[in-house]
Structure formats: structure tokens, C-alpha cells
């Protein structure tokens, strides 16, 4: 009993020491002096939570029962660590870039942030790990009872009571150091450093017992080896299937166990830690297993028949009277148990609170993330409640299972359970085609096989599964026997369950993935995970049409806390170059924010919360472009180029046309200048010569004088008309013309124009009109409009080359407006000239050279001043000019 009191005292001092170390580490990290906490050594030591009480005590028992087989439990993890380049490197990188908080978060995040998957994984993990936690409690209480001594009986030592105290202490530690920072992605320095200390203690304890056994009791290495060969497990009895399967199983469990994922991936700070741990952690494992066989052999030799081989680590030193060594050994086992329970509980609590409690709480809030109130406190509360719940669950499992079963058995059952995550994990990391449906099918399939073939039978016949199921199979189907699925009788139960569950799990994953079609988000995440080394950059962009910075700020404050949120937003605003504290809700910022939140509440919840604010968590076309192969992007780019080049070609053609027109105009202008000089010169010459005759010639008759003067007068008139036209056009073009608006009758206007032209020109043009249509009152500048009519009629007189020239004048009703069409029966204007007939100086078909080519230009200018238009329409045997009268001025006839 004295030993027991010493033991309790030492344990309390040890626990106080752990609390102090954890506090010191947290303080040092808070002051920014925690860089040593991130050293690869601490990381490597924290991985040692793989070695639980099951491996501390149980490995020796295992060796005593099955010889060398115990070592497979260490070989698998050693291979995984040494082969870090294949898988761990990628896993850790994904964990960091995606801010993964747990195994459930990893699988949910990979398969489209599906909360269903997260819940399934969480439930499976809780079912798989709770017995394991119970096992740790049992190992502590059992080892304490050894010190109590058999002579005191059951009354002297209350195992259940001490189990309760241990559970309480563990819960307290986990609550204190596990929920200090809400962000699960931040390092739990206190926890990690305490685990590292415990790792050293358990290694030293086991090595000390081993050294004592080999050199103290065995008398040296050679003698110990001889003793090993002479013992009852002296020859190698290798169960081949178990040797192979357990190596794979332990490797798989090393990756999948929630607590291992927590220290391997979540607590990882940089990849250098992993590089060094890749060879340093196998050293730890090797040292932990180095003395297992000697201790087991010594225990079998020294201790009486029937003593529990699981406790040889304690009972051998005790039997030799080395109580100090026994207490050190107890502390080693205590460390193994407590560190495992702390981290496993922390990992499970994160999963439960993020994937079960928070989604339920958010959905009961109705308005979701936008309601007021502090989510932060809810998350912390949820996590604390989860911690208590899980430790409580472990305690009750221990309480009601009653202990007793061989320690190693529960450990292996738990391993096979969590190994079911492996296909979904590896499939998600290496195969882009793995889908949510496939992952769900695989997990459920593997989990059911595990429950039916390993978990339920482990309680024995007629406890949870009736004996008839063992003998004849489920529902009497002989191929559904738990230890001989599909007729594979004779296999070791653990190997049988492991092989079948993993095989069916993988098969379901592959078939389910091949047959289903992933959502866009799944495809994006799949590409992100599988190609994490190619593009660790952006995932998919939020389209912040709805989200305002204020809303985001409020939500972030409620999850991260006011100070952290403010810092985050300020830093982002600085980066964006925005004044003040609120950055623009750019897609990049939303993405970063989602990752930050994901570290606190898990990817699925964070995605949903941002989705509520940013509006529509749908994936846009741009996102799909990112998923699509690069070729699609190149295609799109070349399409854009093509469109641009077509546009350029169009512009070039327009430029070319404009240039042609300009050139033609320039040629016309030159021709006209020549023409007009000639036009001006001819009358001037005759005026000069006749005026010289009048001046110099004496004796002219009166008739001659009159004739010459008339000629001079006629030429002067011609010059004046030409200059008038030019002046008219220049006035019109410069917009200096003043309009004289009055009311008149269209018919009368046409009459006047025809009379004017007939008075001045040749006769012979047959003008046809429909006077009835022409009785229309119009309000416009009648003189100007008349000028247009006169021009058009004169043109027809001049240029109509038909044998019987004819001009048809029609009034056309163009909806609201009126138009007057002048159609003659002359030779149509050639196609090439049509574009320039309304230009200045353009003269087509000018036989006598009397025109200056200004008539139609003047017409067009006048009509545009009046608000109307004039256009040319080719007809089959003539030309048609249409004068579109301005709309407001044309009024219906009375």
C-alpha cells in the first residue's frame, strides 16, 4: 500500500509537471519566442502518440503470445515514414494548402465539401476510436492495481473509481490546452510539447526496463539471445498472412487514425519537419521495440505460469524488487495512455463539433450565418462538450465492457476500423476521378464489413451476434458468416476482416466513382488535391455580387474573434491598397477568408457560411474553365484572337473603301479644276476679245455692236451662274443658310418648277404627273425645295438620252412622310459612278460640258438642311431620284 501511495504521489507530481510545461510552452508561443516549439525534434516526438499503452504494455504481451509478430505494428509506420516521398509529402501539402482540420475534413473537402461524408467519417471514427480510449483507461487502472497488490483484494482498490479520476484529469487537460485557440489549424503548442515530454518518458522507461532485463537479469547480449532461443517462443512461428496483413494494416492506420492525422498533418508547420521525421521517427519506433522480445522472454521465464503477459513491463521489475524502476515503467505506460487520449479526444472533438454540432446549430438558427451573436463561443462550447462527450463515452465503454479482453485485440479492431478511410483518402489524393458517391459507397461498404466481421464478433458468440450467425451465416446464408465471408473459411479473423473490408471498400469506391458524375465543386477540389504540387494557388473564385464587407466582417468576428478578424481585414485592405479597414470583397479575399474560417469550423461549414453571404455557392462558367484542360483555355483564347482579327480585317476593308472613295474624289476634283478653269477661261476669252473689238475697231455698225455686246452679256451671265452655284453650295455646306419657312401646295410648287425649266431650256421632255396625289399642303422653305425640283427636272432634260425622253413625277406615301420620285427613261448611271453622284464636281455623261457637276450636291445639301433626304434608285431602264420630304412639314391634304 505504501508503494501505491508513492505511486499516486509521483503521478500527481508528473501530471503537475506536464501542466507546467504546457503552460510554459503556450506562454512562450504567445510571446513569439516559440520557434523551438516548431523544431523537427518536437514534431518527431509528437508522432510518438502512435505508441499508446497498447504498444507500451501490449507489445510485450503480444510478443509473449505470438513471438516476433508484434513488430509488424511498427514496421508499417516505419515504411510509411521512410516512403514519405510517395504519400505523406502530398498529404501534408494538401493539409496545409487547404487548411484541413481532421480526417473527416480532408475527405469532405476533397469530395466537394460534402457534409454528409464528413458526418459519416466522424461517426465511423468515433465508433472506431472510443474502444481504444477505453483501452487506455483500462491500462492505467490495471497497472495501478498491480501496485495495490493482490493481497489487498478488490476492496482496497477501486478500479472503476480510479478510472473515473484518470478520465477526469485527461478531460481537464484537453479542455485547458486543446481549446485555447479556436483555430484547429493553429498549433496546440501546449499539447504538443506535453506529448513530446511524454514521448521521452515512455522511451526512457521502456529502454530502462530493457537494459535492466538484458544486462541486469540476463547477463549480457549473448546470454539473452540464447535465453530467447531456449524459451517457449524460441522458434519462429510466423503466421504468414498476419505478418503481411498487419504490416499493411498498421501502415494504413498510421495515416488514417484521427490522432495521427492530427499530429502528422494538422500540427505540421513546415515540410522540413516531415523530412527529418522521415528517418527520425523510425529510430524512435525501433528503439521502442528493441527490448520487447527480451522483456517478454524474461517475463515468461521468471514469473509464475498464468501471469498477465501484458503487464510484464511492470511485473518483472516488481518481482525483482526494483520498485523505482517499476514506477518509472508505470509513468511510461501512463504517458502512453494519456498522450493518446488527449490527442485522440482533441481530434475527435474537432470532427464532432465541426461536422455534427455546428451544422446542426447553424441550421436551427434559421437565418444561418447572418444572425447576430457570437458563433465563436458556440464553437468553443461545442468543442468542449464534444471533448467531455468523447472521454465520457470512452469511460462508459470501459465501465460496461468490464475490461478483461487482451489489450492487443481491441487495438487491432480499432486499426481495421479506421483503415477504412484509406481508400477514400488515397483515391482522393491520387485519382481525380474519385467521386463523392464512390467515396460514400466505399466507406459504408468497408464500415459494414468491419462491424459485421470484426467488431460484433469480438464480443463473443451470443452477446451481440447470435451463435447461429457464426455457424450458419446471416439470415442462414452460409456465405455471410462473419469469419468466412463468401466461403473464405480458415483465415485469421483479423486478416479476414481487413482483406475483405478493404477490398470491398476499394471496389465500391472505384465502381461508384466510375458510375457517378461529380459536381463541379468536386471536380475542382479533385483537381486541387491531385495536382497540389502543380498549382497550390487558387481554388475556385467566389462571385461577390451580394456579399458586403460589413457582413463578412461581422461573420468573421463571430468566428475568429474581434481582434483576429480586424487584423485579417486590415491586412487585406492594406494589400488591396484600400483606405480604412474594410477591404473590397474580391473573389481572392473571399477565398482566403473561407480558408481561415475552415481552419476553425471545417471546410464544409465555412463554405456554407460564405456561400450564404456571397450569394449562390454555385460554380460559375469561369470555374469550370479552370477545371477543363488547358486546351480548352487555349481554344477560347484563339477564338478571341480570331474574333479580333476578323474585326481588324473589317476595319481594314472599310479604310480601303474610304481610301478608294477619297482617291476618286481627288481625281474628280482635279478634273473639275481643269474643267472649271476651262469654263471660266472660255467666257473670259470671248468677253475679252469682243470687248477689245468694241474698243479698238472703228466703224462698227450698230447691229454688230449690239451682237458683240449681247455675246459679252451672255458670257457674263454664264460666269455669274457658275459662281452663284459655287457660292450657294459653300453657304449650304457651312450651315450659314437661313431658311424661309412658309406654307404652300406641292402641286403648285411642281408647276412652278416645270414652268421655270421649260422657259429656260429645250423642249421635248414629256413630263407625266398624277395631279390628284399632289394636292398636299407642305410647310417648308418652298424656294429651296423648288430649287431641288428644278435641278432634278433640268438634269432629266439635259441627260436623258432616250429617243422620246420622258419624266414621271410621282408623289409616294412613305408611311408618315411623303416622297417625290423623279423617274426618267435615260441610260442608267453606271454602277461605278453611283457612289459619287451626290459629291461635288461629279459629272457623269456630260456631253456638252455645260454643267459644273454641282446640281445634285446642292440638292443633297438643301434636303439635309430642310430635314429630309434625297436618294438615287436605279431602275431597269432609267434613273430614279427620290426626294424624301421632311416629316413634320408634310401635312395631309384638306
Amino acid at each position, binding site marked *: 500500500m505504501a508503494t501505491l501511495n508513492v505511486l499516486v504521489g509521483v503521478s500527481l507530481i508528473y501530471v503537475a509537471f506536464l501542466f507546467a510545461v504546457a503552460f510554459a510552452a503556450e506562454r512562450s508561443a504567445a510571446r513569439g519566442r516559440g520557434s523551438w516549439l516548431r523544431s523537427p525534434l518536437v514534431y518527431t516526438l509528437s508522432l510518438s502518440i502512435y505508441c499508446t499503452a497498447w504498444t507500451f504494455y501490449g507489445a510485450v504481451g503480444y510478443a509473449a503470445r505470438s513471438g516476433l509478430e508484434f513488430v509488424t505494428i511498427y514496421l508499417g509506420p516505419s*515504411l*510509411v515514414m521512410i516512403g514519405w516521398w510517395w504519400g505523406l509529402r502530398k498529404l501534408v501539402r494538401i493539409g496545409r494548402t487547404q487548411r484541413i482540420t481532421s480526417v473527416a475534413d480532408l475527405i469532405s473537402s476533397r469530395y466537394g465539401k460534402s457534409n454528409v461524408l464528413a458526418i459519416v467519417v466522424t461517426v465511423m471514427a468515433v465508433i472506431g476510436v472510443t474502444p481504444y480510449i477505453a483501452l487506455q483507461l483500462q491500462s492505467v487502472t490495471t497497472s495501478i492495481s498491480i501496485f495495490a497488490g493482490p493481497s489487498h483484494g478488490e476492496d482496497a482498490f477501486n478500479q472503476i473509481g480510479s478510472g473515473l479520476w484518470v478520465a477526469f484529469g485527461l478531460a481537464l487537460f484537453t479542455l485547458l490546452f486543446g481549446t485555447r485557440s479556436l483555430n484547429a489549424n493553429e498549433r496546440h503548442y501546449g499539447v504538443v510539447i506535453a506529448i513530446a515530454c511524454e514521448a521521452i518518458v515512455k522511451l526512457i522507461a521502456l529502454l530502462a526496463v530493457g537494459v535492466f532485463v538484458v544486462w541486469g537479469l540476463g547477463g549480457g547480449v549473448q546470454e539473452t539471445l540464447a535465453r530467447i532461443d531456449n524459451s517457449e517462443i524460441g522458434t519462429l512461428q510466423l503466421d504468414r498472412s498476419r505478418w503481411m496483413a498487419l504490416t499493411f494494416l498498421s501502415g494504413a492506420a498510421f495515416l488514417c487514425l484521427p490522432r495521427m492525422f492530427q499530429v502528422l498533418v494538422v500540427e505540421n508547420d513546415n515540410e522540413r519537419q516531415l523530412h527529418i521525421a522521415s528517418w527520425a521517427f523510425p529510430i524512435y519506433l*525501433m528503439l521502442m521495440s528493441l527490448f520487447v522480445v527480451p522483456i517478454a522472454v524474461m517475463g515468461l521465464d521468471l514469473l509464475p505460469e498464468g501471469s498477465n503477459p501484458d503487464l510484464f513491463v511492470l511485473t518483472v521489475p516488481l518481482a525483482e524488487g526494483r520498485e523505482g524502476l517499476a514506477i518509472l515503467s508505470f509513468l511510461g505506460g501512463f504517458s502512453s495512455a494519456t498522450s493518446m487520449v488527449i490527442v485522440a479526444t482533441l481530434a475527435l472533438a474537432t470532427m464532432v463539433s465541426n461536422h455534427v454540432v455546428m451544422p446542426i446549430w447553424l441550421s436551427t438558427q434559421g437565418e444561418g450565418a447572418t444572425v447576430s451573436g457570437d458563433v465563436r463561443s458556440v464553437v468553443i462550447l461545442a468543442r468542449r462538450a464534444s471533448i467531455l462527450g468523447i472521454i465520457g463515452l470512452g469511460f462508459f465503454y470501459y465501465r460496461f465492457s468490464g475490461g478483461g479482453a487482451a489489450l492487443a485485440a481491441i487495438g487491432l479492431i480499432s486499426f481495421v476500423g479506421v483503415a477504412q478511410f484509406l481508400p477514400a483518402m488515397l483515391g482522393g489524393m491520387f485519382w481525380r476521378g474519385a467521386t463523392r458517391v464512390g467515396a460514400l459507397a466505399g466507406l459504408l461498404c468497408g464500415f459494414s464489413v468491419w462491424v459485421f466481421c470484426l467488431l460484433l464478433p469480438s464480443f463473443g458468440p451470443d452477446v451481440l451476434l447470435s451463435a447461429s450467425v457464426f455457424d450458419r451465416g446471416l439470415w442462414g446464408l452460409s456465405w455471410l458468416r462473419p469469419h468466412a465471408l463468401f466461403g473464405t473459411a480458415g483465415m485469421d479473423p483479423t486478416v479476414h476482416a481487413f482483406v475483405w473490408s478493404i477490398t470491398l471498400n476499394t471496389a465500391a469506391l472505384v465502381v461508384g466513382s466510375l458510375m457517378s458524375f461529380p459536381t463541379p465543386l468536386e471536380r475542382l477540389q479533385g483537381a486541387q488535391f491531385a495536382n497540389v504540387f502543380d498549382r497550390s494557388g487558387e481554388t475556385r473564385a467566389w462571385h461577390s455580387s451580394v456579399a458586403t464587407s460589413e457582413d463578412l466582417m461581422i461573420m468573421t468576428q463571430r468566428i475568429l474573434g474581434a481582434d483576429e478578424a480586424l487584423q485579417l481585414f486590415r491586412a487585406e485592405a492594406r494589400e488591396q491598397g484600400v483606405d480604412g479597414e474594410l477591404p473590397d470583397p474580391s473573389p481572392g479575399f473571399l477565398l482566403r477568408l473561407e480558408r481561415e474560417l475552415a481552419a476553425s469550423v471545417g471546410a464544409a461549414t465555412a463554405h456554407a457560411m460564405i456561400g450564404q453571404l456571397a450569394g449562390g455557392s454555385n460554380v460559375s462558367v469561369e470555374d469550370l474553365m479552370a477545371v477543363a484542360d488547358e486546351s480548352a483555355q487555349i481554344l477560347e483564347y484563339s477564338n478571341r484572337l480570331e474574333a479580333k482579327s476578323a474585326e481588324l480585317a473589317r476595319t481594314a476593308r472599310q479604310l480601303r473603301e474610304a481610301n478608294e472613295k477619297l482617291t476618286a474624289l481627288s481625281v474628280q476634283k482635279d478634273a473639275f479644276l481643269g474643267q472649271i478653269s476651262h469654263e471660266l477661261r472660255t467666257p473670259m476669252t470671248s468677253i475679252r476679245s469682243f470687248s477689245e473689238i468694241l474698243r479698238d475697231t472703228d466703224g462698227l455698225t450698230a447691229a454688230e455692236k449690239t451682237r458683240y455686246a449681247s455675246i459679252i452679256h451672255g458670257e457674263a451671265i454664264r460666269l455669274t451662274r457658275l459662281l452663284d452655284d459655287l457660292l450657294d453650295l459653300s453657304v449650304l455646306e457651312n450651315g450659314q443658310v437661313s431658311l424661309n419657312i412658309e406654307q404652300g401646295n406641292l402641286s403648285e410648287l411642281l408647276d412652278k418648277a416645270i414652268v421655270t425649266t421649260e422657259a429656260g431650256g429645250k423642249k421635248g421632255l414629256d413630263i407625266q404627273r398624277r395631279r390628284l396625289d399632289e394636292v398636299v399642303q407642305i410647310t417648308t422653305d418652298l424656294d429651296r425645295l423648288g430649287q431641288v425640283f428644278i435641278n432634278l427636272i433640268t438634269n432629266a432634260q439635259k441627260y436623258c438620252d432616250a429617243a422620246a425622253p420622258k419624266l414621271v413625277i410621282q408623289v409616294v406615301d412613305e408611311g408618315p412622310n411623303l416622297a417625290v420620285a423623279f423617274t426618267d427613261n435615260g441610260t442608267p448611271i453606271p454602277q461605278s459612278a453611283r457612289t459619287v453622284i451626290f459629291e461635288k464636281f461629279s459629272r457623269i455623261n456630260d456631253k456638252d460640258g455645260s454643267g459644273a457637276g454641282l446640281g445634285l450636291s446642292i440638292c443633297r445639301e438643301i434636303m439635309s438642311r430642310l430635314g429630309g433626304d434625297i436618294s438615287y434608285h436605279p431602275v431597269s431602264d432609267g434613273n430614279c431620284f427620290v426626294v424624301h420630304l421632311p416629316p413634320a412639314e408634310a401635312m395631309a391634304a384638306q
Partner: protein
Amino acid sequence: MTETVRPSVFLERRSYRLRRLMDALRVLPVAGLMLWMFPLFWPIEASEDVPLRSLSEAVIYVFVIWFLLIAAGAILWFALDGRSAVPRARAEPDDD
């Protein structure tokens, strides 16, 4: 416009050695697995020519391989870490 830079077929001596070191790192777990699975070929039933292996032999076999794997892993890591800046750069925390 989109030029894809094709990596050249031949590497300079330094990067060539680096790649082969990485290859060795990749091969290591495969070699370890094969060696540790080798006891599967050991006899189960004792016969006159081939006696059963003793437990001590098996223990020494497993631990020697273990030691060699760790040594090889550590040596390769030191070689990679010292030789090139590449793994070091990768080792830097690159949080966004």
C-alpha cells in the same frame, strides 16, 4: 502566344545527381517492404535439411534491416539537404 517551355532532355550534372538521389529515396520503402516480407519464405515446418529459424535470428534480421533503412534514409536526406537548395526551398513554409 502560349509558349510551353519544354524541359530540356538532358540535365546538368548537379541536377542529374539530385534526381537520382530522389529516386533512391523513392526506392527505399519498396526495398524495405521486400526485405521485411522476406521471412514469408522461411520454412514453417522443420525438416532435416532446413531447421526452423530461431527467434533470435529473426529478431536480428528485422532490426538490421530497420537500422539500414534508417541509415540510408538519413544519409539520403543529408545528401539532398546539403547538395541543393531545391529541397530546402520546398521545406520552407509557404503559407499563403
